[in-house]
């Protein structure tokens, strides 16, 4: 019996319920959240270990056999995503202890955060399309509420846009799901793999796959569907921005990877080329958008878009190396991007603003923060020997190997432009002397809370670790890619017969 496979979902939900009982006790809630998050991280490690040692695991919920009931299944990709979710979850709950104000806590910040993580874990684990829709909704509801919790003007405005476009994306997903059911009579992803290959009408399958592409593209922030993202991600508290930036768009990327490896493996109908084109435009437009901004979190929001382009690029290339690059990139990006958002909170606490014009002097007065920013920022831009360098290197090599020299050049140039934005933040917030008016003397005396520094430092250390020994991470990513490219084992484990 593989009942433990549901633990990464059940754990956050039970914590949410318990946390609601202690709404007026911030310390209890925070302690519970930290315990839960680290337990979730531990589960992630164990899940990855089990998956790596014994192969794909499946849990048929309610003992209903696969195509009839809902199945949870963990392969390498899923286990890696659960693990990295645990990392961000832990970092964010520790940071929240110092970052989140009391009113927001009393409005139920922690329960919503737990529900969000429960929804994300569910979306990673499920192998049933309708169940995926339900997890998306759980995740969205929690994220809607977290986004507008502060009830400020900008949050409500950003919230309206975020909610509207995300609901539309969910409706598109539901439409695709209905049509796919009409085509094949099943909703189990592994079963669909077998059924759709034998479909008599490949044209209809292609149309439905485009509905999925649009729906997941909106969630992932793909060009030209990303406009909601920079309109909303800079408005909530820093800890919320960090978990959104790290995980929410990546659930979209994950769903897209699953859809186009398992359900609709690429055939020669131009969809792969379309995905490649979208990926390159996403990379370029995102990085150019970032260059035009002067506020830390807006710059970082545009970089999310640009980086999603890299991940989708790997999916579009569809070689073992490229998919391994995508998985590697996902892992690297989630750690680095969440960390940068957490650091933007430190910059704000120092300068009193996210606006770079008002920041400055951090290098001189708080060298350690400067170092902690330097690591993820230059990793994001792809500097050796940090994690981003390997991620970009794998993808660029995969593009060259697949004969797409243009894509490789675009990926390299976007890396350089990323560096431009990062040096902008570096120059303005860290190197430049503090503006006379902006930072008062009291601020220079203040100390950053260790609750905020510790998660930032831990994630920076993880970035350096992945950078210095990328081999184990690459091996895991490669194992995930091999499973994705040849879903036979996944299909066999879930539905019990080979496709």
């Amino acid at each position, binding site marked *: 019996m593989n009942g433990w496979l549901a633990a990464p979902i059940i754990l956050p939900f039970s914590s949410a319920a318990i946390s609601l009982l202690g709404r007026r006790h911030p310390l209890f809630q925070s302690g519970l959240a930290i315990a839960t998050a680290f337990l979730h991280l531990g589960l992630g490690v164990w899940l990855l270990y089990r998956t790596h040692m014994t192969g794909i695991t499946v849990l048929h919920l309610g003992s209903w056999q696969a195509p009839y009931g809902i199945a949870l299944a963990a392969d390498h990709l899923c286990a890696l995503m659960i693990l990295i979710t645990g990392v961000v979850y832990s970092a964010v709950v520790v940071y929240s202890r110092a970052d989140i104000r009391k009113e927001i806590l009393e409005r139920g910040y922690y329960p919503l955060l737990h529900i969000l993580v429960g929804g994300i874990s569910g979306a990673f684990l499920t192998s049933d399309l*309708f169940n995926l829709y339900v997890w998306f909704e759980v995740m969205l509801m929690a994220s809607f*509420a977290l986004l507008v919790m502060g009830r400020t*003007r*900008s949050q*409500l405005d950003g919230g309206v846009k975020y909610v509207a476009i995300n*609901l539309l994306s969910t409706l598109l997903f539901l439409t695709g799901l*209905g049509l796919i*059911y009409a085509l094949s009579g099943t909703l189990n992803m592994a079963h669909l793999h077998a059924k759709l290959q034998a479909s008599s009408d490949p044209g209809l399958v292609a149309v439905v796959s485009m509905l999925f592409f649009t729906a997941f593209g909106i969630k992932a922030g793909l060009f030209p569907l990303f406009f909601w993202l920079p309109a*909303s991600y800079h408005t909530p508290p820093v800890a919320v921005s960090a978990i959104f930036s790290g995980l929410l768009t990546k659930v979209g990327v994950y769903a897209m990877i699953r859809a186009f490896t398992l359900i609709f493996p690429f055939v020669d109908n131009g969809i792969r080329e379309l995905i490649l084109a979208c990926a390159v435009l996403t990379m370029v437009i995102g990085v150019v958008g970032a260059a035009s901004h002067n506020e830390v979190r807006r710059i970082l929001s545009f970089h999310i878009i640009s980086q999603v382009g890299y991940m989708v690029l790997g999916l579009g290339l569809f070689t073992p190396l490229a998919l391994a690059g995508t998985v590697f990139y996902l892992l690297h990006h989630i750690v680095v991007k969440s960390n940068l958002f957490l650091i933007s909170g430190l910059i704000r606490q120092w300068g009193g*603003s996210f606006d770079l014009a008002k920041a400055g002097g951090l290098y001189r007065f708080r060298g350690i923060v400067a170092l902690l920013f330097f690591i993820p920022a230059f990793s994001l831009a792809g500097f050796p020997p940090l994690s981003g360098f390997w991620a970009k290197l794998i993808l660029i090599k995969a593009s060259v190997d697949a004969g797409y020299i243009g894509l490789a050049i675009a990926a390299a140039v976007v890396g350089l432009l990323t560096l431009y934005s990062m040096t902008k933040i570096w120059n303005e917030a860290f190197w430049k002397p503090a503006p006379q008016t902006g930072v008062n003397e009291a601020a220079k005396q203040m100390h950053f809370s260790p609750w905020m520094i510790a998660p930032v430092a831990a994630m920076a250390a993880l970035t350096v670790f992945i950078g210095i020994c990328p081999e184990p991470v690459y091996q895991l990513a490669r194992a995930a890619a091999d499973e994705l490219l040849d879903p036979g084992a996944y299909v066999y484990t879930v539905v019990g017969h080979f496709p």
Partner: protein
Amino acid sequence: METVLALLTGFMVAGSVYMMLSKCLVRFIFGLVLASNAVNLLIFAAGRPDTAHPPLIPGGLSQPATVMANSLPQALILTAIVIGFAILVFVFILFFRAYETLGTINTEFMNAAEDLSAEPSPQNEGQQ
């Protein structure tokens, strides 16, 4: 039957897109309601509705004797309707709060989050 459902779904989607493209948030909500019902109808039609055979297995048999209607799409729709209701309630409250705070339901004038000169107010962030 399927033709009628297909046409009806098409009309509903067309109407909902028209409503959602409006600048008025209230119309957007109505468009959203219409769209989610159109999708529900589509899933219903996807189950190949058949009026003649209720999905009941006669006593003494372990499997249906004739071809029967598919009951799964109805379960899916029910789930989608329940989730849709919850989302709708949230959207109504959110838009009402947005109206109270921003003083408008015209999306043209809703730019508080995109205003580059505006600082996020200090109460936006938790500071201790």
